């Protein structure tokens, strides 16, 4: 009876809407918030993370009465303070990052206001959207799991909020949620497959203000060696045919042809193109023998990387001059595109360079690096163009040049210092110096920035190109042959080109020396390497089949199904899936309901009695008590009067007794017996009636 007293003791008013939040529900909410902040950790300013921690902690302590939630004045003050810090750090830039951090700030501030279950719902909705925003930035399988776990925590917390005092045997919030998800999973999968992937309603570039690791459009001598400290993935490539040899894996991205004192830049502006829709997945259908798919990580740039002599196959990249590829929109999420290698047309006379182009590829700063200029001039006097190049390469090969990730500082006339004094540098140094000398020798030349190399992923199905594979090399124009690739690094450190950076700097021990957490650093530990590659393979398949499942891949899948599926048919199909799912759910619940009625044997027996009554001309009135019905029955059929009355008494005592469950089984047995007796009595009386009828 404690339940009764509790119910009676409660003031019946306003417990429904403004109940305080139960601690366990709050705990789930805090846990979910913490989980969902993890994917954002490197995008959010430290002070914001700290503020969120403090505010959520404050709310948590307040739950236990350790501290009080701030009053309106203090709350406003905190709000103003944090918002002004935010405004100061953002300082007018509006990017997706600042928007995301404002979002997080809003959640943080809301903690101080979370008093009622209404506030809980407000926070819940914001946090769910936070999970959505997280998906914009990170789509790897592990991050997906973190996000989904965060949302699951929310849903468990909601169950606690809606039934805080649930007895322990009925709790099982995870189980309930799991079953629910399991039941609806088929519909989710069908929806995911068939929901028409329509084009963006409006184009919102997701350009983040944060610098991404990767190649940039200007190169100072030290730049690429910084990149070499990162083992982040740049892109992954699947080849339709044979893998090209390691030394041929030159991934061209940019051409840098303008030297501004120390810095190499692109001379022309990229021709303006209106931003258009980017198909995020261009790798559709089977790969041809010469084709390859590149799955590029987001760079926020429009450059696509490709092997030499390639042409675009998928529509999401466009070919540009200089054998380069560009997207129609900065790649703010992972993009897959398809290229094909072409037969190198031997002997076909290459086009002439125009006068403008010749001037462009011979540009040098007005002054500086006199010794390098002198070297160029003297080489030109002795050789033709190819001879100059050969001489340059043999100089690198024969003299004591070193390939190092720890080049010394070369401030004034850096190219002179590198070539004649220090003789220690990284690929960017040597590429810059070579181009300088070639231009001084009157050979049109340019720097190409991109990647070189790539190691096979687990199973050898694809190549992984990482940031430390970033590379810079030289292309020179030779009359009759066109642009020719020259790689000074290959002359100085052949291992770099044959097997990668790790081998090239093995003696130095400087490979990934600043990135101690990278699994690639421990390449000699088999287990780590294996695990890292397996994880990468999982992510690759995930990216390919789930994340990359977009308009084109959907159409491709649909075209394999019988029947011709267009966007419209997909819409109908989606509607059919949703409608069918709902119908199925309704049918299942109706069926369960029927079973539920059958389940209650007691009610079934009583219904049997009701049917007996109706069959004997005694209609059952709704709301009538069993004894009244029994009286009317007794009047109509005196033969069964006694048993009917006893039956009614039993029903009464079952429904109205203090402990219904104890004697239920025995009651049920007796009720059934009574019902049978009644039927027997009725039959007998009818027989008697018939007999008397025949006799008279």
């Amino acid at each position, binding site marked *: 009876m404690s339940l009764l007293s509790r119910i009676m003791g409660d003031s*019946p008013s306003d417990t429904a809407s403004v109940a305080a939040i139960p601690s366990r529900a709050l705990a789930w909410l805090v846990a979910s918030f913490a989980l969902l902040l993890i994917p954002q950790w490197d995008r959010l300013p430290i002070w914001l993370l700290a503020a969120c921690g403090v505010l959520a902690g404050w709310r948590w302590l307040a739950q236990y009465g350790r501290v009080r939630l701030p009053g309106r004045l203090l709350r406003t003050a905190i709000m103003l303070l944090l918002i002004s810090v935010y405004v100061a750090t953002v300082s007018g830039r509006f990017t997706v990052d600042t928007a995301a951090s404002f979002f997080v700030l809003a959640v943080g501030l809301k903690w101080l206001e979370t008093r009622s279950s209404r506030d809980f719902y407000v926070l819940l909705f914001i946090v769910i959207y936070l999970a959505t925003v997280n998906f914009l930035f990170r789509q790897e399988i592990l991050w997906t799991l973190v996000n989904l776990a965060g*949302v699951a925590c929310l849903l468990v917390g909601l169950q606690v909020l*809606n039934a805080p005092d*649930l007895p322990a045997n009925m709790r099982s919030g995870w189980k309930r949620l799991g079953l*629910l998800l399991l039941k609806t999973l088929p519909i989710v999968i069908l929806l995911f497959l068939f929901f028409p992937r329509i084009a963006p309603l409006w184009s919102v570039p997701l350009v983040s203000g944060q610098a991404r690791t990767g190649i940039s459009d200007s190169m100072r001598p030290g730049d690429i060696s910084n990149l070499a400290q990162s083992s982040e993935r740049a892109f992954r490539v699947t080849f339709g045919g044979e893998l090209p040899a390691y030394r041929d894996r030159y991934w061209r991205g940019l051409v840098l042809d303008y030297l501004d004192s120390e810095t190499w830049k692109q001379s022309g502006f990229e021709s303006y193109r209106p931003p258009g829709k980017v198909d995020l997945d261009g790798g559709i259908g089977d790969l041809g023998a010469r084709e390859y798919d590149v799955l590029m990580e987001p760079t926020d740039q429009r450059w696509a990387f490709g092997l030499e002599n390639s042409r675009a196959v998928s529509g999401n990249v466009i070919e540009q001059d200089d054998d380069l590829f560009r997207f129609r929109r900065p790649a703010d999420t992972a993009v897959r595109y398809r290229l094909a290698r072409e037969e190198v047309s031997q002997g076909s006379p290459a086009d002439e360079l125009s006068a403008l182009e010749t001037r462009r590829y011979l540009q040098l700063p007005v002054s500086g690096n006199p010794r390098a200029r002198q070297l160029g001039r003297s080489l030109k006097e002795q050789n033709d163009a190819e001879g100059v190049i050969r001489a340059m390469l043999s100089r690198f090969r024969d003299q004591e040049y070193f390939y190092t990730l720890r080049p010394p500082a070369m401030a004034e006339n850096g190219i002179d210092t590198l070539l004649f004094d220090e003789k220690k540098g990284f690929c960017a140094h040597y590429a810059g110096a070579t181009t300088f000398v070639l231009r001084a020798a009157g050979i049109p030349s340019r720097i190409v920035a991109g990647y070189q190399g790539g190691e096979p992923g687990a199973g050898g199905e694809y190549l992984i190109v990482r940031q430390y594979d970033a590379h810079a090399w030289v292309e020179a124009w030779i009359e009759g042959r066109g642009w020719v690739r020259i790689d000074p690094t290959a002359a100085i450190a052949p291992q770099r080109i044959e097997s990668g950076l790790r081998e090239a700097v093995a003696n130095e021990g400087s490979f990934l020396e600043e990135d101690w957490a990278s699994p690639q650093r421990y390449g000699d530990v088999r287990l780590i390497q294996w695990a890292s590659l397996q994880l990468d393979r999982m992510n690759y398949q995930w990216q390919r089949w789930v994340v990359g499942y977009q308009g084109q891949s959907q159409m491709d899948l649909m075209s394999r199904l019988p029947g011709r599926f267009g966007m419209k048919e997909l819409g109908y199909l989606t509607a059919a899936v949703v409608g069918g*799912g709902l119908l199925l759910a309704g049918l299942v619940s109706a069926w*369960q309901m029927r079973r539920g*009625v059958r389940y209650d044997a007691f009610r079934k027996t009583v219904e049997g009695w009701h049917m007996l009554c109706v069959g004997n001309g005694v209609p059952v009135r709704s709301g009538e008590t069993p004894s009244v019905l029994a009286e009317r029955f007794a009047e109509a059929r005196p033969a069964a009067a006694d048993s009917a009355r006893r039956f009614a008494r039993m029903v009464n005592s079952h429904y109205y007794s203090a402990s219904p469950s104890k004697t239920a089984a025995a009651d049920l047995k007796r009720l059934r017996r009574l019902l049978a007796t009644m039927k027997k009595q009725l039959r007998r009386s009818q027989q008697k009636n018939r007999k008397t009828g025949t006799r008279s």
Partner: protein
Amino acid sequence: MISQLRSRWQQWVHRRIPRSDNQLLNQKNVFILPTGAGVVFGILLMVMLITGINYQNSLIYLITFLLGAVFVGAMHQTHRNLSGLELTLLQPGEGVAGEDIPFRFRATAGPNDAVAVRLSVDDSVLAPIHISAGQATDVVIPVPSAYRGYLRPDRIRIETRFPFGLLKAWSWMRPASAGIAFPRPLAAPDVLSSVPDGSDADNVRSVEGNDHADLRPWREGDMSQRVMWKRYARSGQMVVADWEGEQGSPHWLDFDAFPGTDHEMRLGYLAYLVGEREKRGGRYGLNLPGRAIDPDSGASHAQRCMRALAVWGEEPPRETLPEPHGTRSDQDLTHPMDSQSA
């Protein structure tokens, strides 16, 4: 317009859920709609879908569909929470008008757990109850009352929002039996020792002797003391003498003892006096127009008197005429002679 719609809806619900002391919840009578939070959740899903479309992000599609499926699954779950639940009115309550009168119910869960089920009448909401599948629990619902008389809650609302609070499933139970609200006791003026002289002083007869008696045939409800047994022995006819002098008897709590006051006030006085008498432990009888209760003592007697006071002039509620509970319908109180005198 809206009120018209509302009354149409009410009629529909009433047809769907007839009055009964026993209600089994099933597809026919359980309603389900999204809550305010559920509507916002739906809007959020739309926003998420648009985000997914605009950024061509498959994983946002995925989480949107997942949460949409959770919503649909929750619909199922919330409905199942109620369906199969059986609510039986065990005992309609009795109490003083103006207070909450406890009605006892038994809730029996069907094949599913009934989790976080709230029972409510008007504004009074109980703490949620949880019943495991096939188990039963007794619940007392305080039904607010305003006036004396039969008290029958029009509708008892059975609601659940479990598991996520995004949807609410509800049904009503419309009990057939009525509780009783006693008149609220009013401290009575001291009238028992003397006959008050009020406006209708003309009607007041002499109290000296028993000479002023109306003789009439016995009818049900007359007290045995009033029967003229001598005459019965002589003639076999039961004749009752209405002695005017009895009216002031302290043993009798009399409706007519407060001339000039409102009927309801008189009932209040009488309720007060019943309480007083009960406390003092004397024998007393109650005389109401059309209904009299012989002098007796004890708790059950007091309860009988109080019930008689409560329902005096009231019709027991019938199924066909649903009336707002706690209020008395506009019955003609100037003709309080009801079925009992007919």
